């Protein structure tokens, strides 16, 4: 026997109740928030979390590319690296490279931003030009530095010789200390525009009347900078600095093009040493080298997030 069909009035009442429940469910802020987060979370899971944990797993194996079979060896690769004299140089170089270049980039970028914040002829042209080192692909601009640093044909050495300031050539990349300095100079040249543009954007937000009022009260340029300008750009400077440290810490291209980590492994950083190790298919050790960066970068990122949120 067939069931008695529901009355249209009852159906519409049930439907209305269903819609109300559904609407109230979807209108809950928490539900919507999670819903909107799903695509981002999926992207993070697939492209960030999975490779990260897979890399972590590989770093705990003795896997070589192309050689079947590998064993889980826990932290053996990490322990092996601690005994590796080259790896100790890598850690030292990475810190030197990051913490020596960033103050220079900050000071030069700040100076550049203060100059470009003034109104003068072609100021817009120079502001746009400031970005050039930043937007040119690193590998290309580094090739120009490779030419400048050439052991025998460097135009810098040539100029010094012809000015009578020296007889031979400057050993830019053949001496460990000179090589690190040369790399740092190239990195500073490339990194200054980031600070310059970021700080310039902050400077544009400083009201002119505040400067005028401070000047009327007798404050000099130095005092006006610390009392009026600095409070406005302080957070921008801080965030830019942290970003720059993170990028410099994880740098690869510039050092690889200039020295490939030489001479005698004296300029390797995490990225280049990992790449060199991967060259002989030693996937486990190469992954361990890269992951040694993680705790340091995590600390920088936490500090960065702390300041970003505080500003919010």
């Amino acid at each position, binding site marked *: 026997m067939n069931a008695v069909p529901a009355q249209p009035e009852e159906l519409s009442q049930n439907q209305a109740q269903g819609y109300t429940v559904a609407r109230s469910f979807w209108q809950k802020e928490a539900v919507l928030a999670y819903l909107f987060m799903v695509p981002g979370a999926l992207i993070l899971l697939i492209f960030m979390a999975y490779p990260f944990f897979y890399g972590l797993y590989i770093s705990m194996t003795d896997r070589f*590319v192309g050689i079947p079979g590998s064993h889980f060896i826990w932290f053996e690769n990490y322990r092996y690296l601690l005994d590796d004299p080259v790896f100790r140089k890598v850690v030292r170089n990475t810190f030197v490279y990051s913490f020596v270049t960033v103050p220079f980039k900050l000071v030069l970028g700040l100076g550049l931003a203060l100059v470009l914040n003034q109104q003068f002829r072609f100021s817009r042209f120079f502001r746009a030009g400031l970005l050039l080192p930043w937007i040119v692909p690193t590998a290309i601009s580094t090739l120009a530095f490779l030419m400048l640093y050439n052991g025998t*044909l460097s135009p810098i050495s040539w100029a010094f010789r012809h000015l009578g300031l020296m007889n031979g050539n400057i050993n830019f*990349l053949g001496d460990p200390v000179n090589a690190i300095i040369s790399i740092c100079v190239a990195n500073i040249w490339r990194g200054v525009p980031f600070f310059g543009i970021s700080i310039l954007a902050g400077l544009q937000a400083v009201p002119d009347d505040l400067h005028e009022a401070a000047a009327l009260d007798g404050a000099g340029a130095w005092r006006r900078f610390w009392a009026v300008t600095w409070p406005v750009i302080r957070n921008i400077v801080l965030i830019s600095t942290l970003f720059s440290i993170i990028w410099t810490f994880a740098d690869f291209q510039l050092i690889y093009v200039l020295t*490939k980590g030489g*001479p*005698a492994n004296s300029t390797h950083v995490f990225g280049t040493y990992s790449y060199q190790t991967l*060259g*002989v298919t030693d996937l486990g050790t190469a992954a361990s080298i890269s992951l040694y960066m993680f705790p340091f970068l995590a600390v920088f990122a936490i500090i960065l997030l702390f300041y970003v949120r505080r500003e919010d």
Partner: protein
Amino acid sequence: MSDERAQRLIAEAKTLRYSRRTVLKRAAALGLSAPAIAGVLGATGHAAAAQSGTPAVNLGGSLNILQGTYFVPAAQDFFTKQAKDWGKQNGVDVTTDYINWPDLQPRTTSAVQAGSGPDIVEMWPGIPYLFADKLVDMTDLAEKWGQANGGYYDWVTKTASVNGQWKTMPHGTSSIAVIYRTDLFKAAGYDTFPETWEDFFKAGKALKAAGHPLGQALGQSLGDPPSFCYPYMWSYGAMEVEADGKTVAFNKPTFVDGMNTFIQAWKDAYDGTGLGWDDTGNNSAYLAGQISATLNGSSIYLSANDPTSKDSNPELAKNTNCVPLPKGPTGQFCNLGSRSMGLLSYSKNQDAAKAFLGWFFSIDNYKAWIEAYKGYIIPTGPTLATEPVYTSDPKLKAFIEVAKYGRNQGYAGPSNLKSAQAAANYVIVNTFANAVQNGDAKSAIEQGARQLERYYGR
């Protein structure tokens, strides 16, 4: 050789009454050239393809070949054309890519790990060991190629075969010799080139005083720096390991003495910026007239001697000569290992790749290739060593002569994963670089020995 194979195929086709399609398949497998295939088709009663751009054989698909950049650009252009022409004749879309030498190995590693990428990859000496399980076996073709070349030099077998099997097709290597300025050496009192390292350094001291030092790359590069460091080590009685392939034999008193000699020579005779040079640093310094001698492949001389080259310098070429590396107390050596072409097992077009390799490794074709290379690449066996491309210019004879006393990296063991690790991490080269930087031969060699023990003992 191509004719012999063609004749065999004709006989085979007539006996077994092959169809046109079967003849074409067999011809491709044998690596016959397009004219030879046309001849076979004609002789077996099958009409060859009309000359209308239609492929003689339609293998189909695409083929990507990855190699290190050629130091003789004309040869690179020649190979590209050869490969494309073969592709047209066989209905295969062939592409060729060339990358910097140090990037070839990591790129291969990435491709193997990802299971996709180039079908055929050029491999440095010893690298076939690393990817042995990911390469298509080439033993049949390699054995034929060996027979055609009067066998393989020992350094070819030790660097391109894997435990007696051929996983890649060895195609020879860029050879190394001392390239020097005869005019500057004469002016310094040397009418003939010094025979020993110590005499070479003495001459270098006089030449540096005259403003033209010796030049040697000691940077982190895979070509010129090891080409000096390994033979110098061997000629002073040291090696990476004993014949058992495990016992490190690097820290030898004779080698410490030799290293002390070199440290002094680096100050007295060499251009100190060599510590930062890669494989091109000495080329540019020599061609610019700044150094009096360097170790290199023939590319420096070939560029100077080539009227069409941007580095053409007939006067410099006239005053340049090339000789084998000097001797040390325990002998005269040269670091040699064969480069090879490997077909990766993930390739989706293995038939076409095999057909290409079969075609490329035919005597006629290979001869054309080494001629385009102007002798920069030396062959895998003695038969082709007498070709005019190696003997017609007396200045180039040194590059083929060194094949007689070549030794492989990893000697006295084979070139394998361990020696590749040591080479890729520049253990031997950086021992020399450390020694000249710190002036302490003993501690540099001890440090190098410890690193070798880490790799060979792991």
